C-alpha cells in the first residue's frame, strides 16, 4: 500500500490546493505542531499562525497561515483557512506590514490571554520568515 493521502486546502474565495500524493503534513495546531501521516485517527483541530509543511515524493512545500481549522477523515485532510500564502511567493512588504500590525496589537492591554498567545505566535513566525 502506498503511504499517500489526500489534502485539500480551501479558502473562502476558492479551492487553494488539492493534491493526492501527500506523504506527510506538519500543521501548526493550536496546542503545538502536529504531524499527520496516512491513517491518522479522525481529528478536528484549529490552527495558530504558523507554517504548514506539506511533504510529497516530489519534495516539500511550505505555506504560511494565520488561522484556520483542519479536519482529517478517511485519509483526507481538509484545511479551511481565511488567509494562506505560499512561502516562496510571499511578499517581503507584506511580512513587515503584518509584523508591524501584530506588534501594535500586543500594546493593547485589553486583549484576552488566548488572543495574546496567538499574536505572539504570529510575531515569532513572521520574524523567522523575514530573516530568510
Amino acid at each position, binding site marked *: 500500500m502506498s503511504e499517500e493521502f489526500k489534502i*485539500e486546502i*480551501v*479558502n*473562502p*474565495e*476558492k*479551492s487553494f490546493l488539492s493534491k493526492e500524493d501527500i506523504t506527510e503534513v506538519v500543521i501548526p*495546531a*493550536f*496546542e503545538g505542531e*502536529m504531524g499527520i501521516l496516512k491513517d491518522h*485517527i*479522525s*481529528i*478536528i*483541530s*484549529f490552527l495558530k499562525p504558523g507554517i504548514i509543511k506539506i511533504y510529497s515524493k516530489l519534495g516539500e512545500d511550505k505555506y504560511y497561515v494565520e488561522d484556520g*481549522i483542519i*479536519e482529517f*477523515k478517511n485519509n483526507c485532510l*481538509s484545511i*479551511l483557512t*481565511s488567509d494562506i500564502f505560499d512561502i516562496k511567493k510571499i511578499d517581503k512588504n507584506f511580512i513587515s506590514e503584518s509584523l508591524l500590525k501584530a506588534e501594535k496589537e500586543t500594546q493593547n492591554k485589553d486583549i484576552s490571554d488566548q488572543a495574546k498567545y496567538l499574536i505572539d505566535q504570529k510575531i515569532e513566525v513572521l520574524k523567522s520568515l523575514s530573516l530568510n
Partner: protein
Amino acid sequence: MASLDDLKKRISSVKSTQKITKAMKMVAAAKLRRAQESAEKGRPYSNKMNNIILNLSNGIADKENAPKLLIGSGENKTHLCVVLTSDRGLCGGFNSNIIKKAKSYFQKILNEGKTLKIITVGSKGYDQLKRVYKGNIIEKISFKESKNTNYFDADKVGKIIIDKFEKKEFDVCVIFYNQFKNVITQIPQKQQIIPLQASEKKEEFLSEDSYEFEPEEDEILSNLLPKNISTQIFKAMLENSASEQGSRMSAMDNATRNAGEMVDKLTIEYNRSRQAAITKELIEIISGAESL
C-alpha cells in the same frame, strides 16, 4: 398625429436607449460569468465548514453549556434581520424580491409582539426599507467601493453581528438573500444563522465515526462559530452577486427587446405619416392643376 420630426427624434432616442441596455446586458453577462465562478469556488469552503460544525455539535455531550452562538440565548424576543441587497439598480425584480420576502417576515415578527432590528447590506435595500421601517434599521452597510465580493467585507458584517450578539442586543439572527439558481430564476432565501439551524438535507454527510478533538470540542466550537457566521454571510453575498448580475442580464435583455419592438412600431408610424404627407401634397398639386 405627431409630426415627422417628432417621430424621427423619438426613434433615435429609443435606439440610443436600446444601445445602452444592450451594452449593460453584455457587461452583466461578463460579470455574471465571473460571479458565478466565484460562487461555485466558494461553495466547498462553506460546505466543509458546515460539515465540521455539524460533526462537532453532534459530538458535544453537554448541550446546556454549548456556546451561545450555537444554541441561542435561550430567548426569542428580539430578531435581527440582515437584508442583503445590491448597491445598484436596474436589475429587474432582484431587490424587490428580497424586500418582499423580508417584509412579510418583518410583519410576522411584529404581529407576534417581538422586537425587530434590521441591518441592511447594500444601499438599495436601505432605500426601499427606510420608508416603512426606518425606526428599526440599526445599521446600514454598503460596499460600493469594493469591486468584487470579498471575504474581508463579509467578515466585517459578521463581526458586527457577533459584537451585537455578545452585547445581547438580539436573540435570533436571520439573513435574507437571493439564491442563484440560473439566469432567469433567483430564489429569495431566508436563513437563520443564530442560533444555528442544521439543515436537514446535510445529514447524509454525518459520519458515524467519532473524532478526536484538540483542544476540547467546546473550545473549537467557540472559535469556529464566529467564523461560520462570516462564512455564511460571504456565501450569501456570493450568491447575491451572481443573482444580481443574472437578474440584470435578463432585465436588460427584455429592455433591449422591448426597445426593438418600439422602434419597429415607431418606424411604421413614421413611414405612414410620411406617405400621408406625400399623398396630401400630390392631391394638392393635382387639384391645383385641375382648377386651371
